């Protein structure tokens, strides 16, 4: 079973009308409420019926099932692992038109052909399928939250006719495939690898060849079905259709992404005199990745949702240029590792990487790495010291390495023309129409940079591992620093516009990420109760080390904009400080700096940070952290007593702030509805009282009075989304062996699993991991409860 975690709810009719009236009263020049007592009474006594969009669209819970079967086995010459899995997940829509299914099979076989020659074959296939209405789920939430309860779902409340609500956002029609069509996305993955390992006559030396072929395809079918919304004309008692998304259109997309990898390696692994351990590897690999795709689209005359039923007028076909590619990578890899009795460890490795994404002279990059470690606990002085005997193992380690990255490159070294130019039919098309025929255009690519090459990461890492009191304490401390150079950027010194072309990208910029991780473990048992605890804590920060750009207009702007700064930690949330809300008109009257005339009690106070007596963009300063959580932590608790086991994983994040837009920021946004959270607001105790009368009594709340919208970049709008949540909890019971005598069963376990069941956070009304992209309308985070049975034969 799945439940939505902290899904916002739209307000009911009375709250809606109250908020609208407040918004209207919130007028310094004198406001009048829109809805009168009669309007309220009409809904109270049932003369008028309000719509409940939430209940019409969303259900409380949705089913979720998962089944797996697996088997392992073999003889001394061969071994196998096979498995079969199935997952099915539905969504919270009453229409039940959003669901996801996934099937996978896996077969790994290893066989010794001769004593020296081993053959391995691994096959894995996955298929998944996602069904949804043509209108995306996030858009359904947008429609759902937008329509106030005063708008009926059906025109004249007649269920035959969907109401043409403002902006055509009828969420009930949007949530149903029967109404607006569907989108089916099917993905298949096939991964295979075959390898031969030959043990050479020299002890410890082996030769391995591997070939793998992976294949992924996407097969989508999109049916945009036209449907009608209706305007009810009371003067003639007619329903006037307003057609939506016409004409009905069917579209098929197909894309395939094959990839091959060839590897040949020579391995050497041997110990000498039980002291000197040596491993060496030399490997060559060559991989080819490619993508190809096409689509076809036709309009439909009859409601037959097949491409073959399409009409020939306006039919379209084409290829998405972004997924049409072929790249080749090749690498030489070498590694040499040596340790002395496991006490002193040293390793050196290198990669020589080549990529077809660069000009021939720039294709190859050399990236070495080294590692040193000292297990001090193996030293005799350490072993012989009684004072240190509680320590079972202590190791210090450090490493340095370089890595290359080709991903940002997209053939900027090639000059020439992009053909065909991608265009947009309604704005700048990709060509011109000559004599009634559309002709694809060829656009010059501008200046090329044949010198473009790999960008380079330098990674430095030191750490310590400790085990003490036989598992009662385990400790790992690690510090890391990653510095990247050669990130692509365009020179600050740009060409005059009159040259008509810009400079190409070069390997110019750099950045750094630095942080530490800390892990502590504890294993113990009390009688037959075994338990373990593990905690981790991580902290990461990033900065730009080199950032080419022109200076901004003044020093303040320069400081304010991270595009212009280097050697400063990133993730700064810029905005206005907000020390709170005005508690009374006395506060407003005595405010040390200017506030607008229409300020009311409960409005957000902004910080006059530069002290110039007014709030302006120059009061922008760092107010919080932005972006990914900087601090992450978590711990797991596990325990077992006889057949019962309990495992919990907690995870948390700190120094993270979220802010939202549109309807998650503004009640009655764009003339729409409001979410229930906005009822927690400052408002006059008597809704008919003039909010600008200093004698009006106010009820305090979390948000300001309806009609006051916080500036987007303020603490008033950003919320601390630090959280600690129980990510998973599982309680299991394993039946003891004596139950299964003679019936072939080997084990049986019952379990109950919870995913995201408990969350502690200061954030109100929303899930702390609820994303703020797509205006915050994304599908909610799940809470899952699973009950399961695990049988072994």
């Amino acid at each position: 079973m799945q439940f939505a975690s902290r899904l916002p709810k739209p307000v009911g009719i009375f709250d809606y009308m109250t908020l609208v009236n407040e918004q209207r009263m919130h007028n310094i020049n004198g406001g009048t409420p829109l809805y009168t007592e009669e309007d309220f009474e009409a809904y109270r006594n049932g003369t008028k019926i309000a719509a409940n969009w939430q209940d019409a669209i969303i259900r409380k819970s949705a089913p979720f099932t998962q089944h797996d079967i697996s088997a392992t086995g073999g003889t001394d010459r061969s071994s196998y692992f096979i498995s079969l899995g199935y997952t099915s997940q539905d969504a919270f829509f009453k229409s039940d038109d959003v669901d996801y299914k996934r099937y996978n099979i896996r077969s790994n076989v290893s066989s010794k052909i001769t004593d020296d020659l081993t053959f391995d074959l691994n096959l894995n296939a996955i298929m998944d399928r996602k069904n949804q209405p043509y209108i995306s789920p996030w858009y359904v939430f947008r429609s759902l939250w937008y329509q106030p309860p005063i708008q009926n779902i059906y025109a004249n409340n007649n269920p035959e006719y969907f109401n043409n609500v403002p902006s055509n956002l009828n969420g009930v029609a949007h949530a149903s495939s029967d109404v607006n069509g569907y989108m089916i996305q099917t993905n298949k993955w096939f991964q295979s690898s075959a390898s031969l390992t030959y043990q050479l006559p020299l002890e410890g030396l082996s030769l391995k060849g591997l070939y793998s072929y992976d294949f992924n395809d996407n097969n989508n079918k999109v049916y945009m079905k036209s449907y009608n919304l209706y305007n009810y004309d009371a003067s003639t008692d007619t329903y006037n259709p307003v057609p939506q998304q016409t004409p009905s259109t069917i579209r098929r997309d197909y894309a395939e992404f094959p990839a091959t990898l060839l590897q040949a390696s020579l391995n050497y692994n041997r110990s000498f005199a039980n002291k000197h351990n040596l491993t060496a590897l030399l490997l060559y690999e060559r991989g080819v990745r490619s993508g190809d795709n096409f689509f076809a689209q036709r309009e439909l005359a009859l409601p037959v949702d097949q491409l073959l039923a399409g009409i020939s007028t306006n039919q379209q076909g084409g290829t998405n240029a972004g997924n049409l590619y072929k790249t080749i990578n090749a690498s030489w890899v070498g590694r040499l590792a040596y340790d002395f009795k496991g006490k002193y460890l040293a390793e050196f490795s290198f990669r020589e990487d080549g990529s077809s994404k660069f000009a021939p002279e720039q294709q190859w990059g050399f990236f070495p790495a080294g590692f040193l470690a000292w297990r001090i606990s193996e030293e005799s002085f350490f072993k012989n010291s009684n004072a240190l005997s509680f320590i079972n193992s202590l190791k210090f380690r450090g490493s340095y390495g370089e890595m290359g990255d080709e991903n940002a490159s997209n053939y900027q070294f090639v000059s020439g023309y992009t053909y065909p130019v991608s265009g947009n039919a309604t704005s700048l098309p990709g060509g011109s129409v000559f004599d009634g025929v559309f002709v694809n255009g060829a656009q010059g690519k501008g200046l090329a940079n044949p010198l473009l090459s790999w960008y380079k990461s330098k990674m430095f890492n030191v750490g310590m591992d400790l085990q003490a009191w036989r598992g009662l304490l385990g400790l790992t401390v690690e510090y890391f620093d990653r510095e990247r150079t050669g990130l692509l950027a365009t020179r600050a010194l740009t060409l005059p516009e009159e040259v008509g072309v810009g400079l190409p990208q070069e390997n110019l910029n750099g950045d750094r990420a630095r942080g530490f991780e800390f892990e502590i473990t504890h294993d113990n048992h009390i009688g037959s109760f075994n338990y373990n605890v593990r905690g981790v804590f991580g902290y990461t920060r990033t900065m730009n080390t080199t950032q080419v750009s022109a200076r901004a207009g003044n020093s303040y702007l320069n400081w304010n904009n991270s595009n212009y700064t280097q050697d400063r930690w990133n993730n700064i949330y810029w905005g206005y400080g907000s020390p709170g809300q005005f508690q009374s008109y006395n506060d407003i009257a005595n405010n040390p700096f200017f506030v607008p005339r229409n300020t009311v009690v409960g409005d957000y106070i902004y910080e006059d940070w530069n002290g110039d007596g007014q709030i302006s963009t120059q009061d922008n300063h760092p107010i919080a952290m932005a972006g990914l959580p900087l601090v992450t932590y978590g711990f797991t608790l596990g325990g077992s007593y006889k057949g019962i086991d309990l495992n919990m994983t907690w995870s948390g994040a700190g120094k993270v702030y979220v802010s939202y837009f549109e309807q998650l920021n503004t009640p009655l946004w764009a003339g729409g509805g409001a979410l229930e959270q906005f009822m927690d607001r400052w408002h006059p105790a008597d809704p008919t009282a003039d909010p600008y009368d200093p004698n009006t009594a106010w009820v305090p709340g979390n948000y300001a009075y309806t009609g006051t919208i916080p500036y987007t970049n303020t603490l008033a709008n950003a919320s601390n989304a630090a959280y600690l949540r129980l990510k998973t909890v599982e309680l299991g019971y394993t039946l003891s062996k004596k139950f299964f005598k003679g019936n072939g069963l080997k084990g049986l376990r019952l379990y109950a699993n919870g995913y995201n069941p408990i969350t502690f956070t200061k954030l109100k009304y929303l899930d702390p991991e609820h994303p703020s992209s797509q205006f915050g309308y994304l599908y909610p985070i799940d809470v899952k409860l699973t009950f399961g049975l695990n049988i072994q034969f």
Partner: protein
Amino acid sequence: MKNYILGLLLSALCYLSACEKLDAPPLNVIQDRDIFNSEAGITAYMARIYSVMPIEDFKYSPTLGFNAFVIGSFAGITGEALSRDMGNANGSFGYWSAAYNLIRECNYFSEVLPDYAGNFTEEKVKYWLGEVRFIRAVTYLALVKRYGGVPIVDQLLTDPDQSIGDITESLEELKIPRSSEEKVWDFIAEDLKYAYENLPETSVAGRVNRYVAAGFLSRAMLYAGSIAKYNSIELTAGSERLCGIPASKAVTYFKESYDAAQLLNGKYSLYKKSWSATDKEAQYQNYINTFLDASSPENIFVRQYKYPDAVHGYDALSVPKQLEGPGGNYSSETNPTLDFVEMFEGLPRDANGAIRTRDADGKYILYDNTMSLFSNAEPRLRATIILPGDVFKGQVIDIRRGIYTGETAGGINKLIPPGSTINYPTTNIVSSASALQTPYQLPDGSMMNPAGLSGVFTNLAANGPGGSITGFSVRKYLNPNKPTAEVVTNRSEQSWIELRYAEVLLNAAEAGYELSSLGQGASYLQTAITNVNMIRERAGASSITSINDVDVIREERRKELAFEHKVYWDLKRWRIIDQEQNARLYRVLMPFYAAKADKYFLMIEQTKEMLVLRLIQDGTMIKFPLQLLAKTQA
């Protein structure tokens, strides 16, 4: 054995490294040889530069620029119309980087094509070189109209063999200073003359021939002549006069314009396929067809569209509300003003020449229907805009501001005082804020919606219900045969007529009038009269015998070329846009139904405060993009 295996291994490695050419070029990039070795390649190059040529077509907006998904109407800032979504256009009209990018592409073509000339006939090579010179001229025309003198770049500034380092070291050489406005106009004239000499007599629709170049020359030189004559601003940088041309050059430029226009005589003609001298209905229909008949002999240069690759949304944005297509609240963006309507012939007028809707006692005249007022209107007016109650797509376009519920027996007095911009009156009036209306019961018991199906609704907000806001709707260019299901933002395909013969006639008329007023002879004036009468005859208006005032020609131009995105630049080159528009309140005509009389009357109102055209502070030049200034000043 051991040696054998090692040998095998080494040879395998050698084999692998031997094929180490990581050669996988991008799959949709082609080279000069692919472009310049075939006519198809050249056509692909042309398809690109024609697509970005600065044509102010259906997809142009002063605020969003060229080739934009536009909501709103350019006519909304010229006084021709009011448009909910056309905001204050001050400080917009920007066009710079894209212009110099296109100029570079033209220069590149001119410099590279000669290397491949052996592949083609001499005619073809001349044709294509003429085309890119034409496009370069059009680009400079767009720049000089906006900024006055701009840097003239007549060749490629970077060499294909230069490395990035070389280019950045020679940065100072790449800074080209602004030339004087006069030099830019001369440069445009030179390019257009080159194009005229090299281009062929005819071309396919959408591409240019020599007469297109001549037509543009007449347009450009008329502009330059107007600047020489009417501009009074002097703005110089060093010895270069960036704004304005010496008045002594006016005659030269007007003559160039006049002469260029004469080159098209006999090659094109006014569209009169379904015209009749005696039938006003035929004149009306003929004028509508002028903009929709692809085979019109009046079309000199058009930009074509073709679904699904290159379309516009003019129908969706401009149809009256009641004919709105699916997929959103798009319609009625261009609402002609009463000020515009009053320029036309055939309307009842008061002593001041304004339209008359009240009788001698000041009472509203009552009509059976709203079209009665326009029964004698000039056919061109009916064909240019949809009058309230006129027919479009077989439907009566229902535009009504409200129902007057008061007594009508003694006549209806003026509802609001003259010049008032107060909120809509409510006494004795029912109106509707939204398209979902509450019907009003008429004295005979039947029901009627307060507002018409196409407005006017009292909620004028941009995200409001839409509908007409002036009592009128635009008709020019609307496709009367487009099914409502296709009245969407990506289905319109009618061509944009960038240059038609009527404009050339008006260019010659204006240049001729200016020349005669500058003492160049009466024959110029005679041409002006003849040309204006040709336009007026086709429009169904009376003919004139003399021209005593330049405004006669200007007004004719504003009527004939209305909603064709030309008026704004005319107002600028005449240097009158500031006087005409500062703090101006345009007027609208509001049809009312008088319930107790079962008649209509029409009320003249001022624009509501929220729709007032904002002050345009500087009537001469577009504000130069400041961030570019530093880079341009050498």
